């Protein structure tokens, strides 16, 4: 073919993704499209600034302060912003409360939508084909794999994040936690309890 000689000047993309990603970063950097220190800032944001500890503080405050809880249920983005948790993928947050009658769980069947400012980046299982496919058709079987059993009379309500709303589950406050401080309560709130694949537990 006429362009053969041209093609032979090129190697195939390296199988090593580290090298391949470095090549793109280098090319974009040399041309001024990206700055490596700005990429560092993105990584720092997700490794150190946002994550499920933010969401746990929100939940603990909602357990401790009925007025805050009401604001959270009315407009979760505004309520979380009161604690300084706001930003991309949290612009239209909705908090859904677990009650005696309803257990909520959150999925994104079409991609991997997740409330970054309060939970950080999603865990691998949340992005897995298994979770994305099964959560809507057999949520109880999925919950069992997380060690969560929901009574068959109770509604399991799955939220499929198909639009730009992002969901935060407000887990039920564990019994026997009266008098605990917000900090102590926050320690009881797991990441999974805010996705709905876990429950908050006092021990």
């Amino acid at each position, binding site marked *: 073919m006429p362009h053969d000689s041209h093609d032979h000047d090129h190697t195939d993309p*390296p199988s090593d993704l580290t090298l*391949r990603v470095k090549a793109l970063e*280098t090319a974009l950097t040399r041309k001024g499209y990206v700055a490596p220190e700005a990429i560092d800032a993105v990584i720092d944001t997700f490794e150190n600034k946002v994550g499920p500890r933010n969401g746990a503080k929100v939940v603990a405050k909602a357990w401790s302060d009925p007025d805050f809880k009401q604001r959270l249920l009315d407009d979760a983005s505004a309520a979380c912003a009161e604690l300084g948790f706001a930003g991309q993928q949290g612009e239209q947050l909705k908090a859904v409360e677990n009650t005696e009658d309803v257990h909520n769980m959150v999925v994104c069947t079409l991609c991997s939508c997740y409330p970054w400012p309060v939970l950080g980046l999603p865990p*691998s299982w949340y992005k897995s084909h*298994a979770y994305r496919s099964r959560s809507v058709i057999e949520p109880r079987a999925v919950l069992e794999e997380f060690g969560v059993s929901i009574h068959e009379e109770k509604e399991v309500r799955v939220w*499929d994040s198909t639009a*730009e709303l992002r969901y935060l589950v407000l887990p039920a406050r564990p019994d026997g936690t009266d008098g605990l401080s917000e900090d102590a309560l926050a320690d009881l709130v797991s990441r999974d309890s805010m996705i709905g694949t876990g429950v908050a537990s006092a021990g």
Partner: protein
Amino acid sequence: MSNTVHDMGGVHGYGPIPLEENEPVFHETWEGRVLGLMMTASAHLKGNIDNTRSESEMMPPEKYLNYAYYERWFVRMEKACQTKGLVTAEELNEVWVGNDLPENKVADPLSPDDVRRNFKAGRNYSRQIDTPAQFAVGETVRAKNINPIGHTRLPRYARGKVGVITGEHGGQIFPDTNATFSGEGPERLYTVRFTATELWGPDANPNDTVCIDLWELYLEPT
């Protein structure tokens, strides 16, 4: 494309949930670089979230399924950077074979402060629309049975199914048109609650439900 493997709700065969204790934010250093590249080069790629999703969905199904998560992001982005003329295959090749590239600044990159400010500010997906709402909270609606060739956020498992509107969220950018840059075409967004038995048949638990956020154009009266 819409009827592709990315639309996973209700599909069988993917096995148990792959749980991992004490998972790090990034398993490999390159994964964080990919996310960082996405969030910093985006200003120059001039894409949008719907176009980005659509490009991922157009990958061959076997690739979509076999790529690691951030690998999928990366492959899409590496291609977009070339398609949109930010970098050339020759430039990438130079680095692959161990050479550096000369500095040749043609653009201004986002600074770390820009990145932090953009993250904090978020985006605004809401749009004012003047047309009255076609549906009301409490109303029963049917998700249309449509199979568009282009991007859509109406999952297959809900098509043709009947549910009840439980929330209304005003006008929002419409992904189906935004994905192809043919306009934001804002449409009213609703949350629709479907019973598990409506979606999956009589063997499902009659108490269980699935809530899906759907734009007005995806819905019709019953």
